[in-house]
């Protein structure tokens, strides 16, 4: 779709949604949000992008093939399940570390966040893969 207004807005919106999704991923441990929702919102930004710019440009924009995102996400999730096994606990047990920071509050980082990040990547990769493939099959743009 060759419309300058749409192109600019979509460019902006896909960026905004990406930042929003990362924020949701970060707050997701105890508050509403999390990997699944974050991944869907990030993917929605790129779906808008694909509708306007076409699947080819979207592939360039997400840099790697969507399958790599799925594989990488699964890898992070699998990693987070076994980290606790190496420390002699049951698999999937949450391990936490506090990183003290001077001005803002401390960062509370743990394996559940790693798991959520994996889910984020899997969902993002899966939805972009589905949408891009469907668009290519239907010869969108």
């Amino acid at each position: 779709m060759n419309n300058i207004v749409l192109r600019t807005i979509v460019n902006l919106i896909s960026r905004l949604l990406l930042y929003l999704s990362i924020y949701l991923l970060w707050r997701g441990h105890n508050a509403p949000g999390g990997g699944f929702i974050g991944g869907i919102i990030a993917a929605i930004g790129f779906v808008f992008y694909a509708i306007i710019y076409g699947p080819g440009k979207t592939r360039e924009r997400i840099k790697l093939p969507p399958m790599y995102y799925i594989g990488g996400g699964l890898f992070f999730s699998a990693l987070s399940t076994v980290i606790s096994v190496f420390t002699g606990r049951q698999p999937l047990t949450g391990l936490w570390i506090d990183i003290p920071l001077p001005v803002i509050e401390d960062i509370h980082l743990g394996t559940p966040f790693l798991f959520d990040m994996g889910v984020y990547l899997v969902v993002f990769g899966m939805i972009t893969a589905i949408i891009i493939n469907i668009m290519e099959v239907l010869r969108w743009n």
Partner: protein
Amino acid sequence: MILFGFIFFPLLYIIVGFFPFPLKWKKVLALLTVGGNLVNAVNLIYKISHVGMIKVSPGSWPAPFGITLVADRMSAFLLLITAIVAVSIVLFSLQSVDRPRLERGYFQFLFGIIIGVNGSFIAGDLFNLYVWFEVMLMASFILMSHGGEQPQLEGAIKYLILNLISSFFFVAGIGLLYGKMGTLNLADLSNKISQLGDAKVILNPSLVLIVVGFAIKGALFPFFFWLPASYHTPVPVVSALFAGLLTKVGIYSLIRFYTLILYHNSAFWNPWILGVGTVSMVIGVFTASSQFDFRKKLSFHIISQVGYVVIGLGFFTLSGLAGALFFLGHNMFAKTNTYLVAGWVHKRKGTLDLKNLGDVFKESPVWSVLFIISAFSLAGLPPLSGFIGKYSLIKSGIEAHHLFISLVALFVGIFTLFSMLKIWIEVFWKPVKEGVKSFTIAGDERLMVTASGILALMSVLMGIFGVPIIDYCTEAAADLLSPEKYIRFVLNV
């Protein structure tokens, strides 16, 4: 952490499969993965025979609150058999599946099925069981339609819709059960139901929904129609995998569910289980004898043999359950192998129509012997594994005063033999009909012979070492018959 390995090893292959490594590496890695799974299973059965039960609580949440993965003797036995079947399936796939399919993630989906099956065997929680079912089903949907030929797509639509409906039954049942009992952990459920007294009648609607879900998955009468309509459509080795593993998971779940939950109300459930098992046996074997396609004939036999396992469960005695468990294991080997031979015939001759086949014995005595071992094992001839399975089932049936059902089981055995002999004569023995063009596609098939040989050898070994295996199964059945042990172990009380 042995139990976790059953899910983790196949998952590692799936992760690697997303990245573009050369096909050769992926093949080697697939072999390594099933090998690791087999080692893990042997290790588990060794430990279980000493300890009795093993559990893992992911996330360190104690039993009724978190998900628990539990393995008892029955799970370990079935996990070992699954691992052996998986090894031979991967070996067979390496040579029989065409290159485009292998490049498009064939092994990933195969390992998806193996994760699902392994997970179902160790799930200690109803919703967890549902999730493993879905993992298995998603992978099997894709394997069934992988390649996109017309009969495959048709078969996939039927398989997909009916299995989805069974999932809906199952989930709705789980939801209603949770609403009434407030827990989904199988051990906790069993414990709470035993305290209910007469009020447990209110659970029947949700239990019926769950059992119908299992029955559709396990292809029991009257829910088996999806199986013969779809199992003969995919690549032969895929239908071997499905025939060997998928319906057995439904039956495993039924056994687990019956021995933990349904037995509280056995006056209601027992007649149904026995009736459904008997009718499945008879219907399966009769419809099989009217078929003229190699794989379709075998598909109907799956239904008949699932019936045997279910009547063993219905007798609900020590020897009956042991026989059912033995039969389940034997059937996974024998059934997979007959399908593998069908796959070889299909690759070699390009057809599976019994009327157009013939003279295969002259061409390859090795494959004929491999087929006849598994086929006679299915029919229950001594000294093969099927004989011991059927013998102990029928003996326990007579001991439990179910004379009619035992007679039916014997009768069905004769018809199974008839069907197997018919395949033998039509495919391997008779000369090719005049006017039918017969051709042979030669190729390297050493791995295929090895794969099929492993399974045939297992059938023979299960026959020769029948006594120790039956002893093991009896111990497993004793665990199943006294669920207090399972409950105490899972809940730590």
